[in-house]
């Protein structure tokens, strides 16, 4: 237990180092890693811990991003105030989407969320909402500057801000999943009948988990919108949802630390693969997905955790 906090601290220190030494674009990439990590964390709580599969979390990411963008563009709300608002909005939407989820077994939920992901760009483009969403063109928002005259560029400040939000979200997630509610979530995943017999309200727990998961991904969407300073319907296609799913599987569905591995993976691998050909990122994702399913069913996170366990036990002997 203590060793995992130590690792978390080391990761955090390693994450702060680049602020001084990295250039603007690389800092932006790291900011996106933090953003994706939070988004995948939301998916991990839902899929890994609670056993519900979502192929549509790009939709919640989009809703979070648009909430922030609309608040900032139409009402001049400060960027950091939009985060809690979009958290509440996404949790609400997640709760509503989660309601039918009660009735759905794993596969049907995957299907419904997949449909949600396919449909969301159309809804965002629709002319009924055009005054707020900017239609096909999307919205441009201002990049925040460092407050209190801190000697930081806007990229550096944004990265630290994202990191700060990320650390809070991770601490909350660890607390949530290791406590009573986390145990209940796992119990529902592993044996629903037994969990219900133990007095867990299955329907409520599943819906609330969905809401929490949507909240995480929505906050990530808000941060992402602030970092990119632009939202448009076509950046939230079904491919984004699939990307999150790939990140989740690559990192290991039930592993909180694995979400960071997954986020690094989905930020950097497509960039590398894109240099080979336009078709390569999809193919790489596909091969990795199938490969992970066959070779490392617990994902990179689970794999590393097992390895770590072996090392620690080997040292103790």
């Amino acid at each position, binding site marked *: 237990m203590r060793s995992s906090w130590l690792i978390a601290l080391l990761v955090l220190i390693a994450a702060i180092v680049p602020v001084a030494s990295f250039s603007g674009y690389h800092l932006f990439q790291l900011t996106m890693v933090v953003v994706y990590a939070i988004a995948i964390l939301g998916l991990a709580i839902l899929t890994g811990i609670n056993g519900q599969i979502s192929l549509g979390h790009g939709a919640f990411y989009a809703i979070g991003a648009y909430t922030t963008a609309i608040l900032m563009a139409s009402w001049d709300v400060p960027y950091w105030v939009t985060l809690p608002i979009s958290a509440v909005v996404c949790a609400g939407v997640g709760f509503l989407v989660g309601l039918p989820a009660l009735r759905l077994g*794993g596969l*049907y939920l995957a299907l419904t969320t*997949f449909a949600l992901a*396919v449909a969301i760009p*159309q809804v965002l483009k629709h002319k009924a909402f055009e005054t707020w969403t900017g239609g096909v063109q999307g919205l441009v928002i201002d990049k925040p500057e460092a407050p209190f005259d801190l000697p930081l560029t806007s990229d550096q400040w944004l990265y630290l801000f994202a990191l700060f939000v990320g650390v809070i979200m991770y601490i909350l997630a660890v607390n949530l999943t290791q406590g009573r509610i986390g145990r209940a979530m796992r119990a529902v995943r592993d044996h629903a*009948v037994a969990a219900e017999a133990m007095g867990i309200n299955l329907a409520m727990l599943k819906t609330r988990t969905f809401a929490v998961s949507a909240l995480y991904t929505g906050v990530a969407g808000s941060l992402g919108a602030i970092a990119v300073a632009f939202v448009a319907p076509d950046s939230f296609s079904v491919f984004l949802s699939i990307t999150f799913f790939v990140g989740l599987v690559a990192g290991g569905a039930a592993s909180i630390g694995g979400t960071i591995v997954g986020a690094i993976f989905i930020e950097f691998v497509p960039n590398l693969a894109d240099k080979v050909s336009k*078709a390569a990122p999809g193919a790489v994702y*596909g091969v990795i997905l199938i490969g992970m399913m066959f070779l490392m069913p617990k994902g990179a996170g689970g794999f590393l955790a097992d390895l770590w366990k072996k090392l620690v036990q080997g040292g103790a002997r």
Partner: protein
Amino acid sequence: MEGFIHQVISGIATGGIYASVALALVMIYQATHHVNFAQGEMATFSTYITLTLINIGLPYWVAFLAAVAISFVIGVAIERLLMRPVANAPVLTSVGVFVGLLLIVNSLTGWMFDYTIKQFPSPFSDKPMLGGFLSGHELGSTGVTLAVLISVYLFFKHTRLGLAMRAAAFNPVSSRLVGVRVGWMLALGWGLAAAIGSVAGCMVAPIVFLDPNMMSGILLYAFAGALLGGIDSPLGAVLGGFMVGVIENLGGAYVVGTELKLTLALIIIISVLTLKPSGLMGRKVYSRV
């Protein structure tokens, strides 16, 4: 009134395409309890094969049949190589493999045939028929889909092989005991599903034009159709597919407009799942929770 009838009839024409993709989904679902997320991409790939064969000079119907045969082989191969090992794995694994397959087939299509939008020929004349209600292609493609659906029905009801396939899906253990080669029956089911998908792809391509993402919307309507009819009932899936085609056309024309047609599919899916999860003709499944 005339416009209304026109919308209904052309809804039935597109509904036939949804019905065949829905049937392909249901065939795989019945046998394995998996939903093939890659069904649409596989159909698109088959359509490109047809186009390639036409371009090298084969007559349309020869190319069409050859592509159907090739798709069948590809379907069997995918089942043998990829799906067999994960047959009894948890849902997350199978969804992961299917999504992986979707991505691979999609980028393979883009890489082999490039991403530009292509025109796809129709074997039917484009003159209006039935008193101007239908184009020749719509009428022809409805005919082809119906022929496919009827022959699939006859195959399952009246041949030994069809009976064996149904048995393998219904009760694998007992079927194996009476000598049915269950593994091969599943592979055959995959092959048939891929072949049906390729027919649907060739029929829809002249209308929507051919590009690597051609079928992603159609897959969604097929899902909606399969769920509406009942995902474990082939007949229901076919009816559901036709109904979704009509609902989509009428909704697009009179209610939501063309920009929200995909959202309509989402609404159908959610309302079926919340109001009547077993669909119109599916069996009710009771679980203990």
